[in-house]
């Protein structure tokens, strides 16, 4: 089992997520135009820009880092994604604070705490056509790979997230704005599942460098 993940790695992850969202901002908004209200790209970009502006100097511990990220998202994003992504990070911090070593298992537990927070807030289940459709399979894939390196686990999780994201296309939404469209929500990819996949891909890409 290879080297532990550092706080710097996690900071790099958040920066990479910001960059990925910035690069896909228009696409996220376009997805949200089809079944929502055309703001998911700008919402996430605005929030992550604010987050990155607060990472200098970088927080000293993962717990501090995720608290900063979560609080900043909650206070700058708004909409559905603000409280949900905010909660994700706010729940990850405490989970990591108690970890002895920041390995795949610890990170996986933190991610689970975060996703459970999102479910508790948003009440979405897999199949409701939300970010949960990317996050939950990603967690499961992470756990299945957690005996390996964090980089391996992230790779598996990112792949599962992307599959979960793509699987939202045929779904009829039951949560979020897309649910107002009823049957017409089918045939479109959920924007939150797309941004959640960017989150896990950013982690994969960041940790790939740590191997």
């Amino acid at each position, binding site marked *: 089992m290879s080297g532990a993940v550092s706080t710097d790695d996690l900071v790099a992850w958040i920066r990479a997520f910001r960059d990925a969202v910035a690069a896909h901002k228009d696409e996220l908004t376009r997805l949200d*135009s089809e079944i929502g209200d055309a703001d998911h790209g700008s919402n996430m970009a605005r929030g992550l820009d604010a987050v990155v502006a607060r990472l200098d100097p970088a927080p000293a511990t993962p717990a501090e880092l995720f608290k900063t990220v979560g609080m900043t998202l909650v206070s700058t994003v708004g909409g*559905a994604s*603000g409280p949900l992504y905010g909660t994700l990070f706010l729940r990850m911090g405490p989970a990591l604070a108690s970890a002895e070593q920041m390995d795949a298992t610890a990170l996986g537990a933190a991610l689970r705490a975060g996703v459970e927070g999102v479910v508790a807030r948003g009440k979405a289940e897999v199949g409701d056509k939300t970010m949960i459709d990317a996050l939950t399979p990603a967690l499961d894939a992470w756990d299945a790979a957690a005996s390996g390196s964090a980089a391996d686990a992230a790779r598996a999780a990112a792949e599962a997230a992307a599959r979960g994201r793509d699987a939202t296309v045929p779904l009829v939404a039951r949560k979020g704005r897309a649910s107002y469209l*009823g049957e017409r929500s089918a045939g479109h990819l959920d924007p939150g599942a797309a941004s959640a996949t960017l989150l896990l891909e950013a982690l994969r890409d960041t940790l790939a460098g740590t191997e």
Partner: protein
Amino acid sequence: MKKFVNDPADVLAEALRGIGAAHPELRVDAENRVILRAEPTRAGKVALVSGGGSGHEPMHGGFVGRGMLDAAAAGEVFTSPTPDQVLAATQAADSGAGVLHIVKNYTGDVLNFEMAAELAAAEGVEVESVLVADDVAVQDSTWTAGRRGTGTTVVLEKIVGALAEEGADLAAVAALARRVSAAGRSMGVALTSCTVPAAGRPTFELPDDEMEVGVGIHGEPGRTRVKLASAREIAKLLVDPIVHDFGDAVGPAIVLLSGLGATPLIEQYLLYGEIAPLLTAAGIDAQRVLIGDYITSLDMAGVSLTVVKADDEMLRLWDAPVVTPGLRWGA
């Protein structure tokens, strides 16, 4: 994109600047993006706080003033405000008598107001919340996000604002708010999409001979896309689902026909000329009628119709003085 804007990223901040410049009777907290009455809440008066994404003007900021809201938190365009904003509005508006949060039923609004209410409670502010979910285009279900909150919000803010102005306590104010919320039904139709400034192009494309039936107030497509119809036929598409959803006879009601932003008043009146006899035929007695742009969706062409079944108390409070930029009478 043809709009009066500078940088699309600055739309909210700059619109707030204009509101501040135009309305000395309001106070704009630019940092928190909150619109307040210039006068602090009278001691003992329950404060009404609402808010939501921008792009629905005059709602909510234009309904701040005597007899209506005490403060409104303005989110980015179509994006619910953050808990910090709602908390700032709540704390600034509270006079010690507690605060009613008026929340439209959208996941974002619900979650952000919920977090704000928790934070406010932690700061010792008593908060009650009322949810508006009146859009009959959306089927209600425990498995979904439920109905959207639309035009009933305007009627609720007016009526409940009048009760708060009379000095009722938080429990009474919240109870009336829930009663009004339960009494309202809305239905919308769009002839065009709208353009979110940050997106820079219409949210959806709609052919010249089609329209969207069952839209909300966020520029989203509706429940169904149908061939463009005459005002006479559209009136039926709006009235029928509302009547059907009420089920029972309605009797006295307050009726709001709101333009969605780009539909001129002459068309709204023409359409109301078709709606009025349908309401009467369905046993809806439109005792009060409001027509104009009150709850909008940026530059969408379309309208939403709201019917609120009204008892004598509601009608009395509806008629009470109100002094806001968007709604004003009696003073």
